[in-house]
């Protein structure tokens, strides 16, 4: 297998929150290397800093210490390289679906007309072609999150940062969307980082998993999912014998880090 380039490199990163009531040490000594095209996941208990790390990678927060390189360049908020999805879809209720999808272009100052066809094509691809002129309140939760995916993909980012985008959905819709997101990103050769508290989702969707512990937030273990399991889509993956094995392994690590604190 050819050696893949690094999409994202994180070196000795620490972060401390400071506010009126004091300071909070959120992350300590984080080191990460994410290869191009990989789908990686952060799992861990709430308060372990996994979302903070994602917010630092997006650029919402600046780490108090450490280095972050995106495609070997320092990282800035709003770069064309990065796309971001949240737990809620945050579709703008005052914009039609197609206008929601086009907002990224509009902000970057491209002419809307040239991109209209591309937006339509993307909606078709995500099976949303029919609803281009509807408004968000007319759609179901799963559809809305698919529109949010289209909105994120339209500016063609190389690194997708996903902050629990599946966790507010029903099981059936959730797995469908996992399939769609993973399938689409793999097809387009995108790199992705997913934050989740769902162990099963982590095993089913990822190539590699980072387990976090808290106080201070740190990475306690990195697990690479073998090709045999990682190559399956999230639904098939859940039925594979190895799935339970990895589920148990992560479970044990989370238990241990929980006990350490007591």
């Amino acid at each position: 297998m050819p050696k893949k380039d690094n999409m994202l490199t994180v070196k000795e990163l620490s972060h401390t929150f400071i506010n009126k009531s004091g300071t909070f040490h959120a992350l300590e000594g984080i080191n990460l290397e994410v290869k191009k095209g990989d789908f990686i996941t952060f799992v861990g208990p709430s308060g372990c800093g996994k979302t903070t790390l994602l917010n630092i990678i997006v650029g919402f927060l600046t780490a108090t210490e450490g280095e972050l390189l995106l495609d070997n360049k320092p990282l800035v908020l709003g770069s064309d390289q990065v796309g971001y999805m949240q737990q809620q879809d945050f579709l703008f209720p005052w914009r039609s679906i197609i206008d929601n999808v086009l907002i990224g272009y509009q902000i970057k100052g491209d002419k809307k007309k040239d991109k209209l066809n591309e937006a339509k094509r993307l909606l078709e691809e995500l099976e949303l072609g029919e609803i281009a002129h509807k408004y968000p309140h007319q759609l179901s939760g799963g559809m809305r999150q698919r529109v949010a995916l289209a909105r994120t993909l339209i500016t063609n980012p190389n690194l997708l940062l996903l902050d629990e985008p599946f966790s507010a959905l029903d099981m059936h819709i959730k797995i469908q969307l996992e399939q769609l997101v993973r399938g689409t990103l793999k097809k387009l050769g995108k790199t992705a980082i997913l934050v989740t508290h769902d162990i099963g989702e982590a095993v089913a969707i990822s190539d590699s998993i980072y387990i976090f512990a808290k106080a201070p937030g740190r990475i306690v273990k990195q697990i690479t999912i073998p090709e045999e399991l990682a190559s399956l889509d999230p639904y098939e993956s859940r039925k594979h014998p190895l799935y339970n094995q990895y589920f148990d392994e992560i479970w044990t690590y989370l238990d241990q880090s929980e006990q350490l604190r007591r």
Partner: protein
Amino acid sequence: MSIQKNSQLLHTQFLKKEKKVSVQVISTQIFILIAFLLLWEVSSRLKWVDPLIFSYPSKIWTYLVSAFSDGSIYPHIGATVLESVVGFILGTGVGILIATFLWWFPFWARVIDPFLVVLNSMPKIALGPILIVMLGPGIQSIIVITLLVTVIITTINIYNRFRETEQGYLKVVQTFGASRIQQFSYVVVPSAIPTMISALKVNVGLSWIGVIVGEFLVAKEGLGYLIIYGFQVFNFTLVLSTLFIIAIVATLMYQAVNIFERKITQGWREH
């Protein structure tokens, strides 16, 4: 087949019942109105209440018919409507501008905050006499009084809405590299539109207070002037008739704002 027929039947029955209730509500409303007017007429005629103050519905009606048929009322309605429309649009507009300034410069928002609180609790109408001396008696004073009555509360409400803009929406546009102006125009303003419209609605009511009081103080025409004139010559038929016109015109204005609201939020909200 039978299930379909049955559900159709249920639906027809439901609609019938709904319609019946609506008819009952409307006829009760009409009944109350007529009973009230009759009771008023009878009370005045039998001197249960002082007819000098309460007049008679029949006299009010006669006055209204003549005032509208000879056209003498229109300049008064026109003056008042002009003042209050200019007043509430100006009050809302200036309020939005100040709120924008405060959102843009958070430092100044913190500085100005206590002053806004004090100004908001002060009855702005009390500044009327000073304004009249400053600006002279006339429409300009009335409009500025109305502006003062509406602008502070509008500023406070809209600034608070701007500040509470959902972070998730801002994050979406920030990841596309939106500048502060873009964040403001793509997210902050559109998500505050419902608040702006409710400010507009509140200001319709407030501006009527400003205009009528302003007219009490200075005007030579307008509905407020008619009321104060009626009071001075002890013609309470004129006072009550004018009140009736004010109620109707203010309601129409409020409905116009409602229609405006539906126009601009068309589609993106269920009605």
